[in-house]
């Protein structure tokens, strides 16, 4: 009952308020190499905008790190002697560097920034009578062709693994309960651990095949390159697979019928994966409570890892925290489900 | 007067003759036992008589209506109860009665009157608003039987009605069947259990789609020189060629 009446309300609220593609308070960095009147004026303009949360006084090397760590999505770079150039040539250019792993967000940010810069030309007219022009140069980091697939390949990977592992494992175990075969298996001398492993192995293999095919497809058909270490990427995928397998096992211990297992998998896993992994809706724009919730969604961490390793080409030192979180989740879920896996009925 | 008349009735599924040329009559108020091993064709035959499926060959009239032309009329004039399904577990007793009353087109007034007399008769007045699932199996069966008689059908079909209840409840159930038959309702029972067959006024035994024996339990026991119906049944069903596979 709650599901039937509650679902639409919850969904409307979530989609209406929390999940927006709009960009708000995005962290951007400004590298001002000229620090003169004109640049200050533009920066001031950018600062007063609601869209951005500005990090000033950043140095070139810091900028590179900030992009890698994903702390900023956009950087505005003023060249040296910006005002002078404007005065003498009536033209100057500002470089906009965007993190294009999510091309939608990147485009939006770049458009906002360009619009503000264009507007600020009026402010600058005061000190120079002649018509002049500020050009914006765009650079799309990591994804110069602005391909959507850079964004959705990691997302799809998370979703497929979620579906195959969690849902299928839970259903296959619950099915045994429903059919009564679990009763006979329990009465046999086989240890519960072996039953669990036997249930997990096929789906683990299936997932490995799925991972391989997704990676092959993305590299050779979608032209999404793997910038990081392939071995490292695959081991992260397998870690995530184990985490979801454990989740599936956990679901099977709390549900009594295949329908319930299916419902929990869909409502409790699939939807959150879509909503809170950050692949459809940027997490930064959600209200704080939802951002907190998103932390318990394993797919969020996995999505972050895959994006960084695959698209940005980062190594372990940049994703060790997320890897640790995933491993923690995996061990916790495994432990709980093995403990909850009953050697008796009831 | 015959309420069921069956002449050379057959139902074929491709080359398989599920029901192979059966003929029998059932008269008003009779308790007719319809026995057969698994796969003998009992269920198929009963489905045809309930107007749920059309025969391949043969004639039959149920409650005075032709099986081919008036299937809908037949459904109005029969009641049906099976052990597997009859009542809705998550409705109360009262709601179940209302529901079935509605299905059979009874007016609200009729339903009300019927409900009260039925609850009184079954001694369920205090439980009337309880969910059916909370009732003991025996009560459910008695209630299901009463509900199948709600619209005063001429014939009531009982598909393996009394499995698994205690012997006293079982006898109370059979007493209800006797009572219905005494009032003129024809009762058509299928069952696996041969001791139930002994309660029937007449019994037919189907083997491989045909009726191999038909008569009162006493006649059949004498004919097959058996101490009980179970033995009669085994003697007949043992020679089945198709049956259990």
């Amino acid at each position: 009952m709650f599901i039937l009446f509650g679902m639409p309300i919850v969904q409307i609220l979530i989609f209406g308020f929390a999940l927006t593609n709009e960009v708000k308070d995005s962290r951007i960095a400004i590298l001002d190499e000229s620090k003169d009147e004109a640049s200050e004026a533009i920066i001031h303009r950018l600062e007063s905008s609601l869209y951005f949360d500005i990090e000033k006084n950043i140095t070139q090397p810091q900028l590179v790190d900030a992009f890698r760590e994903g702390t900023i999505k956009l950087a505005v770079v003023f060249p040296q002697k910006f005002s002078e150039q404007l005065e003498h040539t009536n033209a100057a250019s500002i470089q906009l560097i965007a993190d294009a792993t999510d091309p939608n967000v990147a485009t939006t940010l770049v458009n906002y920034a360009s619009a503000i810069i264009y507007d600020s030309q009026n402010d600058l007219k005061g000190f120079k009578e002649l018509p002049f022009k500020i050009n914006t140069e765009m650079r799309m980091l990591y994804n110069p062709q602005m391909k959507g697939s850079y964004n959705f390949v990691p997302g799809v990977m998370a979703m497929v693994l979620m579906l195959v592992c969690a849902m299928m494992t839970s259903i296959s175990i619950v099915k045994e309960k429903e059919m009564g075969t679990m009763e006979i298996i329990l009465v046999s001398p086989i240890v519960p651990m072996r039953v669990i492993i036997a249930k997990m192995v096929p789906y683990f293999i299936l997932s490995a095949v799925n991972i391989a095919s997704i990676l092959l497809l993305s590299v050779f058909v979608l032209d999404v390159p793997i910038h990081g270490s392939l071995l490292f990427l695959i081991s992260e995928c397998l870690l995530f697979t184990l985490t979801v397998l454990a989740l599936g096992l956990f679901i099977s211990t709390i549900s009594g019928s295949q329908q319930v297992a299916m419902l929990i998998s869909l409502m409790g896993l699939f939807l959150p994966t879509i909503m809170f992994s950050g692949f459809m809706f940027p997490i930064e724009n959600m209200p704080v409570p939802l951002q907190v919730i998103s932390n318990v969604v394993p797919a969020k961490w996995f999505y972050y890892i895959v994006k960084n390793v695959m698209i940005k080409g980062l190594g372990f030192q940049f994703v060790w925290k997320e890897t640790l979180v995933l491993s923690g989740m995996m061990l916790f879920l495994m432990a709980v489900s093995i403990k909850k896996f009953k050697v008796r009925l009831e | 007067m015959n309420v069921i008349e069956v002449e050379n009735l057959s139902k074929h599924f491709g080359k398989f003759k599920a029901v192979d040329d059966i003929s029998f009559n059932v008269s008003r108020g009779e308790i007719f036992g319809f026995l057969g091993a698994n796969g003998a064709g009992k269920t198929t035959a009963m489905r045809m008589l309930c107007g749920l499926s059309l025969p391949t060959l043969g004639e039959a009239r149920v409650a005075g209506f032709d099986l081919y032309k008036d299937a809908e009329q037949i459904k109005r004039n029969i009641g049906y109860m099976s052990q597997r399904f009859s009542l809705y577990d998550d409705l109360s007793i009262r709601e179940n009665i209302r529901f079935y009353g509605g299905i059979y087109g009874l007016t609200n007034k009729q339903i009300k009157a019927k409900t009260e007399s039925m609850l009184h008769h079954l001694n369920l007045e205090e439980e009337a608003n309880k969910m059916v699932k909370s009732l003991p199996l025996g009560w459910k069966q008695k209630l299901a039987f009463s509900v199948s008689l709600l619209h005063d059908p001429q014939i009531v079909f009982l598909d393996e009605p009394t499995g698994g209840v205690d012997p006293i409840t079982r006898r109370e159930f059979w007493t209800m069947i006797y009572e219905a038959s005494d009032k003129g309702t024809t009762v058509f029972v299928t069952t696996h259990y041969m001791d139930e067959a002994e309660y029937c006024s007449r019994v037919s035994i189907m083997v491989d789609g045909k009726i191999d024996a038909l008569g009162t339990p006493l006649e059949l026991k004498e004919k097959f020189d058996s101490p009980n119906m179970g033995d009669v049944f085994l003697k007949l069903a043992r020679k089945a060629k198709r049956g259990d596979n």
Partner: protein
Amino acid sequence: MKAVSANSIKKIFNVEKSTVTALQGLSFDVEQGELFGVIGPDGAGKTTLFRILTTLMLAQEGSAQVDGFDVVKDFKEIRKRIGYMPGRFSLYQDLTVEENLSFFATLFNTSISANYDLVKDIYEHIEPFKYRRAGALSGGMKQKLALCCALIHRPTVLFLDEPTTGVDAVSRQEFWELLKNLQKQGITILVSTPYMDEASLCNRVALLQEGKLLDIDSPEGIIKKFKKPLWAIRSTKMFRLLQDLKKMDNVESCFPFGQEHHVTFKEVLNISSLEKELTALGHRDLKMNQIQATIEDSFMELMK
């Protein structure tokens, strides 16, 4: 050593706020090599009892040993030794007959060939269908396959929970013959059934009603305890006869029993006066015989 010994087993279930006492302190022993029947209607607690003895459930009170091992402490040991066939068909429907059998053999660390002699008689019935999926078998065949699977590791005690429910009379009889043969091979068998007529096929039976044991004895022993004279009475109008008999002062109990009514009387019966009385009420073709009680008569007497 007893094959099974239960000491005041009590089991309570919590069902939606209320509690249901499924077993109210059962105690009994089953001897080695016995064919022991647990007989009672649905809801009597048969399945719960079997689940406790097969280590699938824990009782709140009491203790039980199977083959000398405690059902709680030594459940792993018991699981190696017993065979269990649950009430509903619990095999893999999408595996073939043969695959099911070899799966269960593997589960118990054995092979089909190692114990083929034990299951041979039963397996021969289903061998023609060994490549058929278990789900496509008829009721009787499924029972036989399930029995094979429960036997494949040569258990010392076999628990069969309502193996004959929903199975037709021919298959039921065959099934009981198979059980008799297994008993000859030294296996202790506990079988539950709601059908009173199957009691006579067991060495001893426990009559179970609402979680209480009504009696434990051999079928003959139980019948012998029915001390009152029992009469079978028949006339042309059975329903009227039932009503009329129930109204009589001297009648203690009257139950329909197929073609007859089984009647006990409070005082010694004067047959001719009863016959007169009934004839006056319009009954024809009266037949009255004193008869021996059946298990069902005894069960109803004990239920009072």
